[in-house]
């Protein structure tokens, strides 16, 4: 009986702890799931354009927010095109022109291959805890799953989305739905995470759906992760301009 009481009190204490996570704890938990020192991703983007849908396959090597390398694998028109991001600089190479061209930094906020995702959406990986100050707004049930509602305000300058509102699944501790805002409060994008699986001991979505709310009649872009490796050692040579031509 005594043991039962101890187990009851312990479990109720633990339950209370989980249900009353602070906003900072939620951010840390999200970062733990989504962030890594480095990532190597093979993915495909299904871009639902105004007239047709296209699928683009690519492989990305990403280290933090500063370094990213993308090689497009298909369709044939895009295959062989490579992009290198070093800080705020973006270089692109296409086999048709056989030239490496530097694109101005503002392109990083532009659409990737006509999708609803920006280069920053695809290529950046930095813990949100370092970028935002979070406020816990409450809880809600979505599709019979408990979610926290948190709002994030940028604490550093120059972010693509200075304000965010996230619905964080209490079990996975992942933002299954997000609204991304400009500083003015204008809704720029919505994102949702699907098909969440356990990968390398963390919950990670296999599918992201982005929708650019500024695009008239946008039908959204699905970003499907075929393969992802976390914290894999990526040699520095991967992020050299010379590799673009190879």
């Amino acid at each position, binding site marked *: 009986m005594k043991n039962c009481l101890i187990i009851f009190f312990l479990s109720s204490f633990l339950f209370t702890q989980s249900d009353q996570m602070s906003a900072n704890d939620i951010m840390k938990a999200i970062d733990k799931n989504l962030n890594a020192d480095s990532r190597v991703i093979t993915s495909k983007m299904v*871009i639902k*354009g*105004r*007239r*047709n849908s*296209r699928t*683009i396959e690519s492989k990305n090597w990403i280290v933090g927010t500063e370094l990213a390398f993308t090689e497009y694998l298909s369709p044939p*028109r*895009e295959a062989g*095109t490579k992009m290198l991001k070093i800080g705020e600089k973006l270089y*692109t190479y*296409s086999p*048709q*022109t056989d*030239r*490496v*061209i*530097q*694109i101005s930094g503002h392109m990083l906020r532009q*659409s*990737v*291959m*006509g999708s609803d995702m920006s280069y920053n959406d695809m290529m950046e990986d930095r813990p949100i805890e370092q970028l935002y100050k979070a406020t816990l707004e409450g809880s809600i049930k979505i599709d019979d799953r408990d979610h926290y509602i948190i709002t994030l305000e940028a604490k550093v300058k120059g972010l693509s989305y200075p304000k965010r509102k996230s619905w964080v699944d209490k079990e996975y501790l992942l933002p299954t739905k997000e609204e991304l805002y400009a500083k003015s409060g204008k809704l720029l994008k919505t994102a949702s995470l699907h098909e969440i699986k356990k990968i390398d001991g963390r919950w990670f979505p296999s599918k992201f759906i982005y929708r650019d709310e500024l695009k*008239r*009649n946008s*039908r959204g872009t699905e970003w499907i992760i075929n393969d992802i490796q976390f914290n894999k050692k990526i040699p520095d040579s991967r992020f050299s301009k010379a590799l673009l031509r190879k």
Partner: protein
Amino acid sequence: MIKFLAKGLIRDRSRSLFPLLTIIITVTLVIFGIGFMEGAMNNFLQSTAVISSGHVKVVTKAYEKESSQLPNDLALFETNKIIQNLSDLYPNYFWTPRITFGGLLDTPNEDGDTKEQGPVFGIGIDFHSKTSRQIEIWELEKYLLHGNLPKNTNDALISTKLAKQLSVNVGSTVTLISTTMDNAFTTYNFEITGIFNLNKGQVDRQMMLVDISGARQALGMEGAASEILGYHQSLYYNDNEATSMRNDFNLTISDSITKVLRDEASYDALSYMNGWNMISDIEKRKLPRQRTDALSDNQMYDNNEDWEDLSVEDPAIYAPTMIALRDASQLASMVDFSNVAMGVMAGIFLVIVTIVLWNMGLMNGLRRYGEFGLRLAIGESKSQVYRSMIIEALLIGFVGTLLGTILGVSLTYYVQENGIDYSEAINQMSSDMVLPNVFYAKVTSELYYIGFIPGVLATVLGAMLAGFAIYKREMSQLFKELES
């Protein structure tokens, strides 16, 4: 009688030379003024038609709505078939596909790195088709300053201003950085084969002209085009004809395709030809006659609210629609205003000249009252004097108008061929309108007869008015005026 009067006129220069010179000068001015105004307006409209709007153009409804953003994802597909349809329906016009695109033009240094980069406004036109008249209407042989016209798919012409900005010459390779019709990032190399100056102010400052096949390759637009432009075979813009053609097309063919595409409600049907092919041949033959009274009052253009409902789910947004030159670039009010203004200006000019010549005829008659008194004294009747006076005015008016018309038409023709250069003034204007640097006059059929209104009519009317006084005066009074 006429021979006698003509001899009198030649021998008495005070009666013939000054009036003749006045009539020649004024008729020449009338003819040249009207010819120049006609020509200048036509130059302006033709420049706009060549560079941006055609006399009419066909685009998708969605493209029309967002045209300022050059939305090539909303382009027309299967353009060859559409052009064939349009040529069959409107044989007085020739039709040509066009792709307009924006982007950056990047020039490499010796190592292949970026040397210069600048914004570019590209136009893909049909250089190579056998039936194409693009080189003729763009007058590229005249405006090409260096190099040659494009021969290959990846050949390009750029303006002198852009060439200077990017420090490139004929033979340089430049890389276009742009987006495909799927909005994907793209780069494409063009070789500069020629440098042009369109002499149309700032309009060509970022312009690159490529063959449409090159634009299609660069932007992934195989078989597609942003617009199909139509020009009257004579290259002369007729606003009424263009407007009526636009109404015909939009209220019959375009609407029919829209209905078919909506009924089909399938993404496979998102093309003009699918829509067109689903209309039976019998229906097609009926189409041009289907315009109803209810639709003929242009309500489609007044009802903008309909366009707010355009949704990506609506296949009809890809149905073609026709736009007349007056609809493009907010030219409607300008076309209307210029038509009225030209009429008013020509009218005022004509009235002033008529008054001058009338006055001249009047003065000429009054000056000769003494002579009339003498002629009456020696037995000529008042009506004989009056008649001879009018015949003299008629002779002077006719000869003066004839010479003035020859001189005026010659001068107009000279300015039609050589133009008047306003480069300095136009280059200082930062207007979005396509203004030509050189204005050319236009010899029209009306110039051959318009001079006779002031030249003959006004002179004769002046003489008639002056001579009318002969009947009101007594012979003694006329003699008295002779003494003084």
